[in-house]
């Protein structure tokens, strides 16, 4: 009966500390190595790739920014377009699937939800084969528009499923009040549903941004050779090359990660909440 009752139901302190230290090391060290390696010159990487003490240089990062800066901008273009498209398509869908207006409609909702759950499970590499053919037929292969379309379709099912609980949380009293006031369906949607979904839109927007930013399978296959690639696809190509240009590779990895750090700092709490929600609903 010493200090225990004060921390009822809490893990033993020493164990808790040990686990936190191990986790921190396990997750911080890789991040630190990215930065450390990106600060080395080519010669330093060749002679002592594992050195922790060295004179850092910004030359590698500088030259990578010079070469891949355009790719970062292209990534922004593709990712922002896909994110906007997903929100524009996903919010109405989530709204429609959250309403229970008639028994027939409820059955339709169930069927659509099952289709979305299934689509969300199809491994992305397997969709590349048929999508390739479809994009060729529509003359969209090699175009940014085709890539944005493919990315949108990739994350839309998941986004609708994630947005739906937010739409379900809109109290149905509000719809009834709006109908009493003579609001059209469209007005109800634009003035009541969309503002109330702000949190959900921010959460899903952040998750979609993160996913599309890191997407490389479509980007490497659906853009034409020799054209400019998004930064994730550039990273994929660098990885494929047999060389020990670790400093360049890590500088590129750093450049790929930095925009996500910004998104993460803004959206961390929503991400945490949204991910838990998405997994359980």
């Amino acid at each position, binding site marked *: 009966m010493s200090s225990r009752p004060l921390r*009822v*139901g*809490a*893990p033993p302190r020493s*164990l808790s500390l040990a686990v936190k230290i191990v986790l*921190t090391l396990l997750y*911080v060290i*890789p991040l630190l*190595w990215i930065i450390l390696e990106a600060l080395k010159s080519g010669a330093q990487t060749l002679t002592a*790739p*594992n050195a922790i003490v060295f004179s850092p240089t910004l030359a590698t990062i500088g030259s990578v920014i010079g070469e891949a800066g355009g790719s970062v901008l292209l990534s922004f273009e593709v990712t922002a377009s896909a994110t906007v*498209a997903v929100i524009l*398509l996903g919010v*109405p*869908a989530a709204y*429609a699937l959250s309403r229970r207006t*008639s*028994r027939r*409609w409820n059955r339709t909702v*169930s069927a659509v939800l*099952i289709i*979305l*759950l*299934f*689509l969300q*499970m*199809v*491994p*992305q*590499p*397997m969709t590349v*084969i*048929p999508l390739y*053919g*479809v994009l*060729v037929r529509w003359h969209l292969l090699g175009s940014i528009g085709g890539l944005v*379309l*493919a990315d949108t*379709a990739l994350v*839309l*099912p998941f986004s609708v499923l994630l947005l739906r609980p937010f739409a379900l949380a809109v109290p149905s009293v509000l*719809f*009834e009040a709006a*109908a009493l006031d003579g609001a059209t369906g469209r007005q109800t949607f634009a003035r009541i549903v969309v503002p109330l979904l702000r949190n959900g839109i921010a959460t899903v927007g952040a998750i979609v941004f993160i996913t599309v930013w*890191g997407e*490389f*399978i479509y980007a490497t296959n659906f853009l034409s050779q020799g054209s400019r690639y998004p930064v994730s696809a550039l990273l*994929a190509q660098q990885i494929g090359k047999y060389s020990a240009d670790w400093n360049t590779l*890590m500088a590129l990895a750093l450049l*790929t990660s930095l925009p*996500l750090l910004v*998104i*993460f700092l803004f959206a*961390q709490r929503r991400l*945490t909440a949204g*991910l*838990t929600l998405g*997994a*359980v*609903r």
Partner: protein
Amino acid sequence: MAAELQSEPLQGLRDTASAGSAVSGRRLRSPAPWRYLIAPGVVIGVISVYPLIKLVQIAFSNVGPTNLIGSWSWVGFANLSAQLHSHVLWAAARVTLELTVMLLVSDLVVGFAVAAVLVERSRTTSAVMSLMTFVWALPPLVSGSVWKFLLASDGPVNGLLGNLGMKPVDWLASPHLALWSVGFVTSWAALPFATLVLRGGMLSVPKDMVEAAAVDGARYWQTQLRIVLPQLRPTMTILAVLAVLYSFQGFNFIFAMTSGGPGTATVNVPFLAYQQAFTTFDLSAGSAIALLAMVVIVLLAIPYTLSVRREEQA
């Protein structure tokens, strides 16, 4: 473009539609919401569902790079049966299974233990959770490539071993170890998500249950295992299904770290399908493998779908 699709082509039909949908007596007349599904439905139908139908068609035909656009000759089950008799596919299935088991153990066992420690709210806890969530948010290619570097034969991990007087280990070049390395990194990348979900579940376990056990003198882990764990069963089930699906998708880390090597030691089923289609350009073989994998996924997805629906109706 999306905005265009969304503008209302059916404004005039609205009244008829709402009158047609039999709204139950108590509710007020509300228009059928189906028109909000038109634009997303068209996009999903055309870019997600239609290609899947094409995939099935390619799996039953003879399609290579030359006749991708053109006529396909129907070959029936020939591709599928060729794949089912191919030991390459079975080797890939085994790799998939092994990766799945590793991921399941990591998500459920390690995830549970980590969440049980991180469930206590404190400043250090939220710092560790933030760090882990950020790593989870990184593109798999970034985390995959840094681990490729860390585990390289002359990389930092072996450098450390050397300083400790140990021999270097072929983490990624040995056929036996490579799969373990890929499994470790995949689990490492998935652990933050599992922890987040399980921790969320733990926080919603009624506090007095836990406190009552503690007052009765139960030790922390006893409480966690006998009282908290049973409460987490639904969360654990969903997490297990997600882990299986995720490991099917575990393509990114293989791509980043080993490209399936050494030899074919780390080729899983999606990677094999991709290789067949885009390295060998045998689109039919790749599609046949993808189709077989999808049948397995559908079977695995049934309990998940049912559990989601049950929750829906509750």
